[in-house]
Every structure is written in structure tokens, then in C-alpha cells.
């Protein structure tokens, strides 16, 4: 395996190993996502029926909020014993560290969505699985876009002050296109007359976003992280 891929693999494996042991981030993020769905539900369910399009919106808001939480916690771990510095000290290509951490975060968020997506489908009578491939595509591309920007920002903020509040402050404006695309794409799949071309269009925008921003993150990781 070439050194770059090896580094990505080892970093990701180390993160997943730690998470599997304690499952702390997994359980807390999951719980938070479920609470999020509930809280928003109380705002948008009237007389036992959800307001139109509420399911799509609530799903993606829950993903965004719980994603921010997970990112914060994941990097708090690296801050604790300054292990992120140890990674920067290692003779590895720095962008590989970013990619390894991104894949770890994605695995985590994927696990959370395994529970949250069916939950939303059940609670709002939303036929989220009528078009499973497109739905999965939207979830994957959207979560990747959100996490790609989030991983870079969370890594950047590890040594900054006020990092807890600055992560959402920085992350939410930049990921607005992801949220719009995710919500509208999902809503297109939930409409009475399902609009497949629309969902596909939003999916392609998400994929484009992912490509551009992962590339940008790989490119800027080293200069932004050197002190």
C-alpha cells in the first residue's frame, strides 16, 4: 500500500478502534440526534400529521446538529493529550491525516444515521426508502460534504480559544448549500408525485460540492495547521 493510503488507513483504524472501545461519541451523538428529531417534531407536527416537507428538513437538521457535536468531540480527544501534534510530528503526509480523520467521522455519522433515518421515516410516515439508491446517495454525498468542511474546521480550531462555539459559527454558513441540497433532494423523493430528475440534480450538486471541498481541504490542511 502506498504510504499516503497507509497513513489514511492507520489513522482511521485508530479512531474507530478507540470509538469501538468506549462508544462514547456514538451513543451521545445518537441520543442527541434522536432528541433533535423529537424537539423539531413538536414544532412541526400538527394534529398527528407532519407539516409537508417537515420530514426532510428535520432529518437534515438532525444530521447537521449531531454532526457538529460529533466533530467537536472527535477532535477534543486529539486535543486532550495533544496527540494531533504527535500526528503532525510524524513523517506522514499531512493531508493523509485529514483524510483518515474524515473517514473515521463519516463511519461514525453513518452509524448514527442507520438509526435516525428509519426513525424519521417511521415518525413522519415518510417513504424514505421508496427510492433507496437515490436516498442513500443523497445521505452519503450530503454527510460527506458536511463532514469534509467540518473535519478541517474542527482540526483548525483544536488550538484556538472559544473553539466550542466557533465550530458551529464557522461551519453552518459554509454548509448551507449542503443543507439546501439535502433537504430539497429528500423532499423531491417524498412528494406525492416523486420528482426523480430533481432529486438527481440535487445529488449531482452535492457530489460536485464534495469534490471541490475535499480537494480544497486536502490542499489547505498543511498550511492552515502549521503554526
Amino acid at each position, binding site marked *: 500500500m502506498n*504510504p499516503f493510503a*497507509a*497513513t489514511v488507513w*492507520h489513522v482511521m483504524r*485508530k479512531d474507530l*478502534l*478507540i470509538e469501538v*472501545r*468506549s462508544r462514547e461519541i456514538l451513543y451521545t451523538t445518537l441520543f442527541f440526534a434522536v432528541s433533535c428529531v423529537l424537539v423539531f417534531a413538536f414544532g412541526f407536527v400538527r394534529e398527528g400529521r407532519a407539516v409537508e416537507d417537515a420530514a426532510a428538513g428535520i432529518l437534515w437538521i438532525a444530521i447537521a446538529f449531531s454532526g457538529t457535536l460529533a466533530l467537536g468531540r472527535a477532535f477534543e*480527544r486529539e486535543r*486532550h*493529550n*495533544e*496527540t494531533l*501534534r*504527535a*500526528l*503532525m*510530528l*510524524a*513523517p*506522514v*503526509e499531512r493531508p493523509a491525516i485529514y483524510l483518515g480523520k474524515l473517514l473515521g467521522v463519516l463511519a461514525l455519522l453513518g452509524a448514527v444515521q442507520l438509526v435516525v433515518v428509519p426513525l424519521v421515516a417511521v415518525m413522519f410516515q415518510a417513504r424514505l426508502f421508496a427510492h433507496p439508491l437515490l436516498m442513500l446517495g443523497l445521505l452519503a454525498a450530503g454527510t460527506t460534504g458536511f463532514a469534509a468542511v467540518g473535519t478541517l474546521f474542527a482540526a483548525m480550531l483544536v488550538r484556538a480559544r472559544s473553539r466550542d462555539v466557533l465550530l458551529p459559527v464557522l461551519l453552518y454558513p459554509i454548509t448551507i448549500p449542503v443543507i439546501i441540497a439535502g433537504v430539497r433532494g429528500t423532499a423531491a423523493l417524498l412528494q406525492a408525485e416523486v420528482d426523480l430528475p430533481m432529486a438527481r440534480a440535487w445529488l449531482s450538486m452535492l457530489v460536485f460540492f464534495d469534490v471541490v471541498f475535499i480537494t480544497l481541504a486536502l490542499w489547505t490542511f498543511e498550511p492552515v495547521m*502549521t*503554526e
Partner: protein
Amino acid sequence: MDFTSVTFTDVSRHFGRRRALSGVSFRCEAGEVVALLGPNGAGKSTLLAVASTLLEPTSGRVQYGEHTARSARARLRARIGLLGHELFVYPELSPSENLMFFARLYRVEDPDARVGAAIDRAGLTARRDDPVSGFSRGMRQRLALERALLHDPRLVLLDEPFTGLDDAGTVALRARLAALRDARRIVVVATHDLETVEPIVDRALVLQGGKLALIAPGPDPLRDRYRRACEPRAQAAQAPRES
């Protein structure tokens, strides 16, 4: 790539308005143990961080042989080992998992054997599969030291390595440092524990308020020479107020 000397030329580093290092110049050669002394907050940790390439100097140059951090990058980092204040180990993982992870990152040869030997040297064989979070400070310190030395670096930077070690541990560490010197490594030890480090130190440098001074070699104990090196600055600090 390899190198046999580290040279700081007029290195300064500041954080906003706080000057951590000011015009620091010195040179270390292979096969010597250099003590970096000074009061707390003098900039010792900053100097080690700059030497390890974690921090870039705001001015001045650091050279490793003919290479610089910018020219050699990852290849240079493979030859540097840092034991920081913060230990750099994952508390959720066991010693063997921690060391294996770093062994893989540093692409160490024969990782299993090396990791096993390192754990034995740290005296942690009995607890090799327990998570580090349950360890005492001394045990973590020993593990962190092994982590820093796992890849057999040319430049060894140690920040307060004797903290939390008992007598046996201290003797063992001194022997380890002597062995590193014999293996022609460049060892820089930052500490304010002069008595402990005195027996194995070849040269001593003092950092005060970001400025570096050399401590002249001599027959007197290190502490006396250290005090003498600090005095001129203490006097100079007083003079402007008198006039």
C-alpha cells in the same frame, strides 16, 4: 536522510505580543547531551517545539546539517523524536496499541519486535494490554519516552523527562541518555532538575526570558554555574530602575 548537527541562527518566536524566544543561536553536535535550563515560562518548551519542526520561527533559521524543515519535511521528521510536556499517547488505547500505531506511522522495521522491546524497557510488560488511562504518571512518562525513541531518531528532544520517575526510573533514564550519546545521537534535555541531570550532561544552556546563554564548563557544581550565568541578567534587569 541524516544529519550530525542542529544549528539555531538568531531564532525568534513570538505569540502575539509575548516574546517566547529572542535571538537564540546555538549548535549541537552528534554524540552529546545538552541540558536546556531555565525558570518556568522561559521558553524551553517553545525552543524544543521549534527544534522539532512543530513551530516555525518568526525569524531566524534552524538547520539540520544542510537541511531545513522546509526543504526536508517528512524525511526530516522521521529523524526527530520529541517527548513533550503533554505525553502524546492515547489514553483509550493500550501501550502496545499506542506503540504499534506510531510504529506504523513511522514505518519502523520489524514493528512487533521493536514494540515488544520498548514495552519491556518501559517496565510495562505486565500491563501491555491495559488502557493507558489507568496508568500512573510515571508509567505514562515511561511509555511516552519509548514512543519518542521508537523510531531511533537522530535528534532526541526531551521536555522534563524525569517528572514522575522514581529513583530506579531516574537511574535507568540516565543510563538510556548515556547510551544515546554513545550511539552518536543529539540529545537535548529541558529540565529544571539540575542535580538529576548533572551526571550525564556534556553542555548546559540557560534560557531566560527567551534569551539563551551558555553555561561555562567548570569544576563547580552545575547549580552554582547556573546561578552565575543567571546573575548578569538579574543585575541588568535592576540597573535601569536605579538610574
